């Protein structure tokens, strides 16, 4: 038994904007009967103002899919296309007073139907869902979609990716791929976040960040090859280190030091120079 909000129940039992618009200006179709839910969205658009004057849906799916379809059509009616595209799946879920986590993919489907319809109206390729590589064979979910939904909804676990996109919910064969995508997305995110504040570092902050970068970013890589690194001193922009383990006397040590320097420049400060004790 799902814990649906009263709003979801109400909009499931009394859906609004059901049907298909005759001669629609835009049509967006997503999902499939095999996957268990599908949504066909038809729009009437004022060609001069690009404003959505009417929206109707037909949905095959569970209660939350049907309620999400009503939410979508209510949210976009009267908006311009650009305004409508600013709506996210979170807005659809919020309109419904929230959805069970396992049902968030219904709100994502609503958003995708809108994207598909706008692309159709603008004569673009029918929806970006078709771009990228298929990761989940069971539900036909691409890496692009998984990445976007991870970032928009700040997802951290495979379980949540399944809740929001269905990917991984079938045979489970793609779960390692989803884990990889999660790691990639959040690794990129970490870099972006740490790059920003680097201009205003105090000396103490700089030292702390160098230490942290060595511990988290550099050391694990060296240790993976049975090597190691020790931070000896920081003198202005000079970072003095010592290589340990198999790194000692390694023919590739120069390359390793250059790479360490590159990482520190990237994550801490452009001016840093790495020297071996």
């Amino acid at each position, binding site marked *: 038994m799902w814990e649906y909000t009263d709003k979801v129940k109400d909009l499931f039992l009394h859906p609004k904007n059901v049907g298909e618009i005759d001669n629609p200006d835009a049509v967006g*179709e997503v999902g499939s*009967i095999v996957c268990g*839910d599908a949504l066909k969205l038809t729009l009437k658009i004022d060609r001069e103002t690009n404003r959505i004057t009417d929206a109707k849906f*037909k949905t*095959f*799916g*569970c*209660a939350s899919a049907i309620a999400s379809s009503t939410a979508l059509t209510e949210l976009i009616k009267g908006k311009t296309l650009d305004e409508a595209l600013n709506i996210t799946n979170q807005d659809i879920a919020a309109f419904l007073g929230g959805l069970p986590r396992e049902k968030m993919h219904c709100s994502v489907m609503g958003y995708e139907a809108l994207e598909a319809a706008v692309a159709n109206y603008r004569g673009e390729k029918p929806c970006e869902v078709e771009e990228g590589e298929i990761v989940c064979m069971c539900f036909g979910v691409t890496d692009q979609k998984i990445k976007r939904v991870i970032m928009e909804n700040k997802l951290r676990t495979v379980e949540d990716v*399944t809740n929001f996109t269905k990917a991984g919910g*079938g045979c489970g064969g793609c779960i390692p791929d989803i884990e990889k995508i999660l790691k990639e997305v959040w690794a990129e995110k970490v870099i972006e976040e740490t790059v920003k504040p680097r201009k205003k570092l105090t000396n103490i902050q700089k030292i702390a960040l160098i230490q942290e970068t060595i511990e988290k970013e550099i050391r694990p890589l060296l240790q993976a090859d049975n090597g190691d690194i020790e931070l000896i001193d920081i003198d202005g922009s000079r970072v003095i280190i010592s290589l340990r383990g198999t790194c000692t006397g390694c023919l590739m040590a120069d390359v390793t030091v250059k790479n360490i320097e590159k990482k520190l420049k990237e994550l801490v400060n452009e001016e840093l120079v790495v020297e071996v004790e």
Partner: protein
Amino acid sequence: MKVVYLDNNATTKVADEVREAMLPYLSELYGNPSSMHTFGGQVHRNIEIAREQVAALINAEPEEIIFTSCGTESDNTALMSALLSRHDKKHIITTRVEHPAVLNFCKTTAREGYRVTFLPVDKGGRLNLEELRAALTDDTAVVSIMYANNESGVIFPIHDIADIVKSKGVPFHIDAVQATGKIPIDVKKLPCDMMSISGHKMHAAKGVAALYIKRGARFTPYIIGGHQEHGRRAGTENVASIVGFGVASDLAKKHLQTEGTRIQDLKDKLEQGLFNTCPDPRINGDMVNRLPNTTNISFEYVEGEAILLKLNEFNICASSGSACTSGSLEPSHVLRSMGVPFTAIHGSVRFSLSRYTTEEEIDFVLEKMPPIIKELRELSPYGTDLACH
């Protein structure tokens, strides 16, 4: 609003007689049946009466019955015992449509190095007995096959299966959780080594089940501890539920003899009525060898959870094999094994009746169901020309 309960394969109402029999053990008779004093020890006699009653339902001897906590425990115990008793054998045979209690147990053992044969079923949910015969090897430790399927209601030819398995001398376990109390079972005529039955599927309380272990069959306990159940299942007995299970078995036996085909007739009326009012329904499963109380019907192009929630508005309880109701994103493994097309699998509804089901309730469902299917088909982007009459 009155509840119209047509989900009896999930669980059943506790019979009034069962509840009455249980109550003393939830109040004044709280003693431990293992105690030396009369206050506790007297309770033990009632457990033995219940054992006789449960045994009588399947024509077993009382000492061939041990009480467990649920059907899953009975299934797990049976399989684990078979594997431990013949630890040199590394092959298990079961079917693709078993209850998760057997299916997932077998999948776990497969990860531990056992070879598992999952026998397929045809469109009607039927097994091919030749495939069973061919799968049996000298290395087979146990064969575990259900008597009747919980989702489709299909009854397997369990006597023929037992003959094949026993002709090879392989231990045979039957998951009879859905069959007991619904069709007559006689273990004296059915050569199996173990059989799981469950209380709450036949109007006893939850938390009690039984495992039949044929006299002389090798058995290794699963739950280890005290001497309860003659050391075959440790743990203080769930006295109230066990006593209730005994009464429920008595009632089930009586009911099987007196009521005959009443439930079957009601189910046929429901099926026929839905066929007459909704275009393109399909029955999932063998039309002949089915439990008298179960029907699994698909309404193409609509989704099962949506049907259930609309029925819920009228307090009608049923269940579905659709992905959205499964707790995962995968639709029912039983219907998929039967090759039910996806267009129909998501729109499947299972109605399971009981001896408490009335004709008025069936009429009520037949009145409410067609407009529900009609509304949902109008909402659906597929097959819009299939509205109900």
